């Protein structure tokens, strides 16, 4: 029986190697948190308003879909008035554009999307602010969602239709 035990030892060793438990809880959210303040009136054909983040500012239509968090996305809850404290889960990394996207009812195509507000650089408010996420929630990413001052995708990725 000792010989048997010796010959089974390699199997036991292999099993021992497997003693980690695989995936584990990741306590606390890793992501971006802040408050959005709504301005203007919600357009009648609104499907939803989504907050997403880009590692790099999108320059092409294909880039436009390289956002996090991954679908399915959930719209901010109605009513789109006052202010709302949002949280999105995103991986660690550096984000060049944290933006609120307004979506018209219909397919997820650029024609149905408009930028409704984004997190701004504190020193140069006309420019997007950089957000760094590193193992926890990066807080105070606050900005305004202004339904009266939205910009279609072609503003950033031309050309715009005549």
């Amino acid at each position, binding site marked *: 029986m000792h010989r048997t035990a010796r010959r089974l030892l390699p199997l036991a060793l292999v099993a021992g190697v497997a003693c980690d*438990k695989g*995936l584990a*809880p*990741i306590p606390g959210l890793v992501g971006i948190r802040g408050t959005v303040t709504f301005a203007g009136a919600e357009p009648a054909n609104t499907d939803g308003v989504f907050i997403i983040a880009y590692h790099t500012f999108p320059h092409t239509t294909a880039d*436009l879909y390289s956002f996090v968090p991954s679908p399915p996305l959930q719209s901010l809850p109605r009513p789109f008035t006052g202010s709302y404290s949002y*949280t999105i889960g995103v991986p660690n990394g550096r984000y060049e554009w944290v933006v609120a996207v307004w979506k018209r009812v219909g*397919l997820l*195509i*650029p024609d149905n999307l408009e930028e409704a507000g984004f997190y701004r650089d504190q020193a140069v408010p006309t420019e997007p602010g950089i957000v760094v996420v590193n193992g926890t929630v990066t807080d105070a990413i606050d900005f305004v969602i202004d339904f009266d001052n939205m910009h279609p995708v072609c503003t950033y990725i031309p050309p715009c239709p005549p």
Partner: protein
Amino acid sequence: MTRRFALPLSLLAALLAVPRLAAQRTAVVYGSVRDSGGQPLRATVTDVATGLRSFADNQGRYRLSVAPGRTVVRVAHIGYASVFDTLTLGSADSVERNYFLRPAAVELQPHVVVTAAKRSQLLDQAVTSVAVLEQPDIARRAVTTVDEAVDKAPGVQFLNGQVNIRGSTGYVQGLGSRVLLLVDGVPANQGDRGGINWDLVPLDRVERVEVVKGAGSSLYGSAALGGVVNLITREIPPGFHARVRATGSLFSNPPHDVWRFRDYTGAREGIDVTGSYGTDMFRGSYSAGGWHSDGYREQDRQNHWQTGGKGEWRAAPGTVVTASGSWASDQYQVPLLWCAGPGSCDDRGQAYQPFMIDQSGRGAHTRSDKGYLTATLDRTPSPRLALHARASWLRTHFIDFQPGNNDFGVANRVGAELRGNLSPTSSQDVTVGAEGARSDVTSDIFGNHSQTELAAYGESERGVGSARLTAGARIDFLAVDGGSLTAVVSPRVGGVLPTARGAWRASIGRGFRAPSMAERFPSLAVGPFSVIENPGLTPETAWSFELGNTTRWSGVVRSDGALFWTEAYDLIEPHVDATRGQIQFRNVAHARLAGLDLALDATPLTRLTTSLAYTFLYSRDLALDSALAFRPTHLLTLAADYRWGRFGAGGDFRYSSRFGRVELYPDDPRVDAKVLDLRASWESGPFAARVLLTNALDYIYNLVPRTLAPVRTLSVTLTWTY
């Protein structure tokens, strides 16, 4: 009559001719099979010439009808050395033969396979790699479904029900399997989606599984691009037999309190009943059963019901008419994706909750019914000629119930085949045949469409010196909705050379897969995207090369190694058009899959059997210049079983390296898969009890996006056999 129809019609005429042999009397061999300690063995007793089999019962008793004359009988049981016995019997003779088998490692693989060349051949003479799971091995593992039984075969990996042979398919959510499923040689992939319903055949009806690796389209046509899995159902023994199998399982609760999602322990319970009765001329079996499962995660309940039967008419020695069928119904909740991100479930402050589902999928469930009917006629008019004809009907029907939207699909696949296996000389075997199939679908998401496939094939194997060379080809004609024909030619050449250093084999063959109707004609919404049709899809193709060796070392070790290389073209993949918000299946990918497949079986001690299977896989999407998604570089399976009288104990360990690339959620945490299964068994007369602890380490992992793989599960199976 034109020449092109001459062969199939002559085959048909030969098959339909009622043999005068029916009037002849048969001879009978009967007796018992035991091990060297006197314990009865449920061994297989085979007439080598005709392939007809008898299975010993729990007392080791068997009864085999054979044709009068000289007969070679093979008595085999996994883990034991086979016995070959040559008998000369007169008409109506009845001879008792009792056999005793010795334990041996070299018998861990059976000698005869039927799938690699569409005829019986010695395993060592197959030009491609074949992995075989015999019924005792399946029973020993105490698994309850067919996919669980196939999952641990060397080079095979299941991704949420989708089978991969040497990384063939990856994961495409059940669509378009690049592996062909056969049930007793009859194609059984879904008519609409091209996927596989692994619950189509109850595991209790399966006698043996053969997994042929690499392109098999030269004999099997579409879908055999990456390999073929053939489920061979049990033969029906003479006399009355019955079997009752009851299974109960408990699922482990989540290992962390923060992941708890219910306040009770989930369970699974089921029962199968099988009865059969056979005479020398007529045999029939019927089985029924079902099970219920709470599932191991949220929204994962499932009910399953199944029934099936098989009837045989042995019209004469060498002539068997078989009819078989099966029907299964599943009602299951759809767990969809696990919850990740704030607000998508009760996240409890966690980045993700692997046991909970995203609330967008709450309430989704599916009803899936499927069944098949098959009739076959096998005639062996002489030792040099065997004829086979079959007709089959496969039907699937699903209804997806989703919040605010239900989808349905009804698909049929009707097929027929005529085949002849000839041995014009003692050193040559020729297989020729013709096959036809028609699939149709009626669905709100795939529309109403049909696809017709017509094919002819031939393959010859010839001995040249000590080597055996094989060459053959198949031509398939495909037509969709009655449109123009697309022709696909799939050749294969190969050879086997026995040497002092084992048997060497080499082969190169072409495989293809016709686009499924679900890939051609989808019309549905997936989240914010619309999936649109692409009627212009063409078949995806692949060239597969293999160089392998099988060697027996010192009588207790057997090795099988193979280098493989597959070059795949026009692979059908979903293409996202962000500008239009559309997804469309297109012929886009050019891929390379190459690597090493190694299997070792050994019996270092009389009662101990061990095996090791390792696959190294290099996979590359050459169009994107990146790794292919959902393919592990390393896949390792270790197994050991110790048998002591009526008791047995063993285990499997499966390691699958972390995927280099995944789709949909590349940023999600992912790990290697390390799964240890432990088992124990006890047998006494008609009773057997088996205990199985799957994923004993309760290793938490996922292989497909945001879909938790099964957790630790304790199962007890009790079987009574009469």
